[in-house]
């Protein structure tokens, strides 16, 4: 939190000081900063858990942890990374950038903004405190499938209430973003002139509002099953354990796009800037994003093909899943066409965006493969799926967020970051992330199930390579922390436009921007809009 204290000292805004500035903050930049710092801390906590997993899997046999604790590691790693790192990072970027991008002074509902952030530390205190309880931390997988999850000890209600709080926080954040974009756009900033990052976030916000209550309902039924004698998911009482999976994935699949769409938005800002060329197919990008979001509500059961659905159901979910490849393909082609015949330079944000383009596409290919139901019967619950979703989540989404941080860091701090260190960060991350996740495809195809603490000796070599890649990737991320700290403390002065090819309202403000972004709304014309 210390890092924002320096960057706006040259403005004459009224702003609170001391700890109260952060606790009671209603400022979109301060809250955005807190979200980003929180996300970074959780990224390292979740990463530490991944290190425990990779340490235990470095060789066959059990050396360091018990199977139960191993299961807690995989479960809480996922919960922390998804709800603690990626989602708050996305909201943090939205908080910082959306008011500046639409020409507003702040978010529409600043007090709710404060509350939606401050819920998070409490929610994660609940979740992480379960490590010290009878029965330990959640160990039934982040998907919380009953009946297994109901075997958890005292931690179960803490898990469930943590999920409720996280949902509450996300919904408040989403309402705020929608209210801001719908009501506070500057004159002339029509919907079809909005920067794509803003577009992807509006669509994400609608997904959040539609999906999070479904999750809340599902986990509430777990709570009543355990403590109040209901049998929603217990066949012995007339319930159905698979029903939970339907409910969960009705949330869970849109959740995938909640995570990825902001990253799509970020690279849609960055690629045109560094290609010095307008985004190709702006309108089709918007429609493709909306189509992906719409379709995401009709494909949930592809996460659970092996539960035994009727043939017609399996066929429906297979076709619907394959259909998502079309708008996703359109986006990839549009980004490629944006680079085509551009005048490209490769500063760190562009490098990370190109990384997203290549490696997200790779994750998309394996996603298509798993959408094919009969083959998924082999891939399901193996390391193949672990490889797939990590490709999409790490080089697909985390790289996108990191690209955004490098892209806007000079705007936030007023200083350029250290380009050499940034490039080191990119290349080390890219090499290690592939050493980490690519061999997982082989392990999965060769038959190694996921979520196991120990394995047959035929899998040893790949697991050792993966663990080494994991350690290298984890250590590489420390460079980011160093770059950010260094950039806050000083460096070459950033211009208002920061990047030669940058467009958009945020680059008409000084670097760093004033405490209240636009006190008088700017007039937006085609020339000053992103598209």
């Amino acid at each position, binding site marked *: 939190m210390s890092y924002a204290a320096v960057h706006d000292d040259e403005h004459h805004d009224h702003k609170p000081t001391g700890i109260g500035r952060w606790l009671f903050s209603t400022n979109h930049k301060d809250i955005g900063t807190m979200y980003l710092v929180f996300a970074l801390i959780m990224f390292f906590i979740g990463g530490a858990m991944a290190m425990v997993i990779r340490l235990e899997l470095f060789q066959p*046999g*059990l050396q360091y942890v*018990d*199977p139960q604790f191993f*299961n807690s590691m995989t479960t809480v790693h996922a919960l922390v990374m998804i709800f603690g790192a990626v989602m708050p990072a996305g909201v943090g970027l939205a908080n910082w950038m959306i008011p500046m991008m639409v020409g507003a002074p702040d978010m529409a509902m600043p007090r709710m903004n404060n509350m939606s952030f401050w819920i998070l530390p409490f929610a994660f205190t609940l979740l992480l405190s379960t490590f010290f309880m009878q*029965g330990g931390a959640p160990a039934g*997988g982040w998907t919380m499938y009953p009946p*297994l999850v109901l*075997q958890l*000890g005292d931690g179960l209600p803490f898990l469930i209430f943590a999920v409720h709080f996280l949902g509450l926080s996300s919904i408040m954040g989403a309402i705020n973003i929608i209210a801001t974009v719908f009501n506070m756009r500057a004159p002339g900033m029509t919907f079809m002139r909005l920067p794509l990052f803003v577009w992807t976030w509006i669509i994400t916000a609608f997904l959040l509002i539609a999906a999070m209550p479904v999750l809340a309902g599902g986990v509430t039924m777990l709570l009543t099953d355990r403590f109040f004698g209901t049998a929603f998911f217990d066949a*012995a009482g007339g319930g159905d354990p698979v029903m939970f999976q339907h409910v969960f994935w009705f949330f869970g699949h849109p959740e995938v796009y909640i995570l990825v769409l902001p990253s799509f938005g970020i690279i849609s800002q960055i690629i045109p800037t560094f*290609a010095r*060329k*307008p985004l*190709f197919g*702006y309108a*089709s990008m918007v429609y493709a994003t909306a189509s992906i979001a719409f379709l995401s509500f009709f494909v949930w059961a592809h996460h659970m093909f*092996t*539960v*035994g659905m009727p043939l017609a159901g*399996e066929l429906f979910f*297979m*076709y619907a899943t*394959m259909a998502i*490849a*079309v708008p996703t*393909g*359109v986006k990839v*082609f*549009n980004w*490629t*066409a944006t*680079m*085509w*015949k*551009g*005048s*490209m330079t*490769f500063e760190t944000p562009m490098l990370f965006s*190109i990384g997203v383009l290549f490696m997200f*596409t790779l994750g998309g290919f394996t996603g298509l*493969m798993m959408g*094919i139901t*009969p*083959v998924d*019967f*082999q891939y*399901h*619950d193996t390391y193949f799926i672990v490889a797939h979703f990590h490709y999409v989540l790490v080089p697909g989404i985390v790289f996108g967020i990191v690209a955004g941080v490098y892209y806007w860091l000079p705007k936030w701090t007023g200083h350029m970051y250290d380009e050499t260190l940034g490039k080191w960060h990119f290349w080390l991350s890219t090499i290690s992330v592939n050493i980490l996740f690519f061999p997982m495809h*082989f392990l999965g*195809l*060769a*038959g190694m199930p996921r*979520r*196991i603490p*120990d394995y*047959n000796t035929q*899998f040893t070599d*790949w697991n050792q390579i993966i663990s080494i890649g994991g350690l290298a990737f984890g250590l590489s991320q420390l460079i980011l922390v160093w770059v950010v700290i260094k950039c806050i403390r000083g460096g070459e002065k950033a211009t208002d436009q920061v990047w030669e090819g940058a467009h958009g309202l945020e680059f008409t403000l000084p670097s760093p921007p004033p405490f209240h972004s636009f006190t008088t709304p700017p007039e937006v014309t085609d020339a000053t809009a992103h*598209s």
Partner: protein
Amino acid sequence: MSVDKLKRTVLGAIAASFFLVSGAVFAAIGDMPLNLTKGVTETSQRVYDLHMIILYIVTVIGIIVFSVMCWSIFHHRKSKGAVAAQFHHSTTAEIAWTIIPIIILVAMAVPATKTLIFMEQTGDAEMTLKVTGYQWKWKYDYLDEGVTVWSALDQASNEARQRDSGIDPGTVENYLLDVDNPIVLPVNTKIRILTTAADVIHAWWVPALGWKRDAIPGFINDNWTNIKEPGVYRGQCAELCGKDHGFMPIVVRAVSKQEYAAWIEEQKAAALAAADGANREWAKDELLAKGKEVYAANCVSCHQANGNGVEGLFPALNGSAIVNGPAADMINILLNGKNLMPAFKEQLNDADLAAVMTHERNSWDNTAKDIIQPADVKAAR
């Protein structure tokens, strides 16, 4: 000239070492597991073919898309003096890259649909095997024969996989992929396989058969297989089912129909002999010896080898009031279960139950030191 020569030499050296390194890497990878198995059933073969077709299609698409990106990255860069064009849409291109993927997807959907329909034809099976998942073992019921087989991780793997066991897993044959009682199935027979579970959700998966299917408590899933080649096929539970999810393998021994019939007769005879155990008086040593085996196979993963359990999860048997208390109460818990403790009524016969209780009452610091006879258990059922 000499600079050029130097450049060429350096580039040549880099290229040569690149090929050497990648050659070594490929040689090493050649021995490492890489791809899906072709398996031993028509289903697994079809699934493998479909997997390869899709892999080739996405590889070709990937090469094309990535080549365009790379071309652009290398040629359309500012440092090469590229001047940015200002086009920002092309309706033709956008329609083309919407329609072409749709055509490719439809082409993929056709064989996928055919394979799926083939896999879902569970009718006209010649025999039925019911698979029930337990934490953490499998029960197999040969429904046409009335034969039941319990199958859990084998002793050698189980010892080696304990933390700090000091046993190198490399010395254990088929580490974690071997069981105490493999199941036997006949080849060239359409076998209906029903999956269900007793406690939490498991998934029964033998890669060589070409599919996996969840085993869900309270529900029965319907699958089939027809194994073409005799052999031993190994698999594992594929759905997280708690602490020992990684330790409940599956071993299928596929044999000729004659061998299968002989094996079934053996199983029936063994079941009769075991049921007989309750009809005679057992000696203490006999019970203790058998009890030790039963404990290692059924109890140790929760209550631990030292009988101290796992705090907060699984209660200690060492010094337990129940283990040292009246025999009737202990028999009741073993038969009917309690909280997370499963009911062993069906899993173990009278002699096994009597033996394991005798073992527990005489082990560690326990003071009961008495004997429970199989007849006592039989009477309590």
